[in-house]
């Protein structure tokens, strides 16, 4: 099943890679946000099946985006270079992929979250 996926990632090259990977995995990149305000707005308004959240968006944490998604019932996973220690208590049990990650890592994480 093809999912509409929100990509929140502040590093341009990694954002583009994520778009490619999402496409390669048979899903659709629904929207791309690289900063917190855009991400909050897109999380609120876009029709989404899933979201991939970079934890640190140019110095600001993406947890408010997770909050919006949670409220809307949209599943999400975190992608981070900080390790799970950088994730707040509330979301510490969520799926996290460590950067850099492979296509297979991302595919497994999406399947786990979407299940």
């Amino acid at each position, binding site marked *: 099943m093809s999912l509409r996926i929100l990509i929140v990632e*502040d*590093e*341009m*090259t*990694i*954002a*583009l*890679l994520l*778009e*490619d990977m999402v496409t390669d995995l048979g899903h659709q990149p629904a929207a*791309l*946000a*690289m*900063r917190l*305000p*855009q991400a909050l707005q897109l999380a609120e308004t876009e029709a989404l099946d899933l979201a991939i959240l970079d934890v*640190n968006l*140019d*110095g600001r944490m993406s947890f408010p985006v997770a909050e919006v998604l949670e409220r809307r019932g949209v599943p999400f996973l975190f992608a981070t*270079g*900080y390790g799970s220690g950088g994730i707040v208590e509330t979301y510490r049990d969520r799926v996290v992929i*460590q*950067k*850099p*990650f492979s296509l297979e890592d991302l595919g497994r994480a999406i399947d786990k979250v979407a299940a």
Partner: protein
Amino acid sequence: MSADRGPSAPDRMRDFPHGGGELGALIRRFDWSRTSLGPIDAWPQSLKTVANTLLLSPVPMVLLWGADGVMIYNDAYSAFAGGRHPALLGCKVREGWPEVADFNDNVMKVGLAGGTLGYKDQELTLHRHGRPEPVWMNLDYSPVPDESGRPAGVIAIVVETSERVRAERRREEAQERVRLSEERFRALVTATSDVVYRMSPDWLEMRALDGRGFLSDTEAPSIRWMDEYLFPEDQAAIWSVISEAIATRGVFQLEHRVRQADGAAGWTSSRAIPLLDDDGEIAEWFGAASDITARRKAEQHLRLVVNELNHRVKNNLAMTQAVAAQTFRNAQSVAQAQVSLSSRISALAQANDLLTGERGADVSMCGVLEQATRPHYPSLERRRIDGPDITLSPKTALSLSLAMHELSTNALKYGAWSTQDGVVWIRWSIYRPPGGGPKRLKLEWSERGGPAVAPPARRGFGSRLIERGLAAEMGGVVKMRFEQEGLVCVIDAPLTVYAEEEA
């Protein structure tokens, strides 16, 4: 045995001296005719009286009779004389004690001239047991007159005080050691910059604390020291280490937070040892605590820096991975992909130089443009830049730098820099939208004098990075137009969200 059965016949006849213990007997038996005193029966009454008085006294005394000072002494003196007794009896005093002959010579001269002498704790070196030893004595000498009233002898009271003097010296030395030790301790406490403190055996009461300006002082015993020096949330953990030290009578040692004299949170390295009393019970705890606030801050900062570095390394690897994946994805050949990848990794590395400052340190627009285009333009005149210098966030600077790298390599391969005299103009300005709203940045890359260009049949990673990536990065619109005169790329994005105009 019969010879030892008792006094000989002449002894029994003698009634002088009366009694006098061992010395009395010895004197009665002694052949005094060999001395300058002459036979005992012929002694003047004055000599007999003094000698007999002396023999009956429990105080150590010796009578030195005549110019030679012939010695007559009692039992108590014989104990003092040690191994020199009984040979001393009847000796001339200067010969009897040859090691102190000068001293006794003076005694005889003064005494026979009618004078007295008194010494307190006089030290003399005597050979009482076959070897020299220091002996301390209280000595009192008085003249003894004969029947004519002139001094005929000297009587000496000799009280040995060696034991007392030695004991006093030992006590004085011990006191001196204690005094020195206390002095050193005070010097140590004064010399150190550490906080010093004393606690009751159970640590419930702080007896004193000298805070050295780091902590506030406690001068009188206080049971509220915990609230004074420790933050409530730290107290339980610190108390458990204290309890352990009390239970094991071991050393208390801990680095912990403290409330500084100025109220701020500081860090201290504290160490206390139990002082035990004579029964082995803890009398009190003595401790020293140093201010390690600066060190802890430096360590904390270092941890943050290391974490940040680790993150940046991972992030850079992820970016390299992303660039590599997309370069190969869009490549027409492996050879072309190799060249592109290598060039892009160089661009990434150079762009990273812009970001070596602390996180959040901004980067100038001119710096980014110069750094990204310099490796590519044929000469400086063929790259014109014009616009106000503004500062960019490091992240925007990195993305813009990569975009400018893509435009530059494209210009070198297919555009204005591929010909003899083509020029690239980079112009930017800040403007306020006609309809109002926040200020915007408009940046235009335009190539002139190059070959005629047409839109490429196939969009590569470069154009995607610019049109999609940079647009998303800057929160604006990026358009590429392939005009007859050359490529034009226009970036139009809000200024205020991502960049600050330089004041």
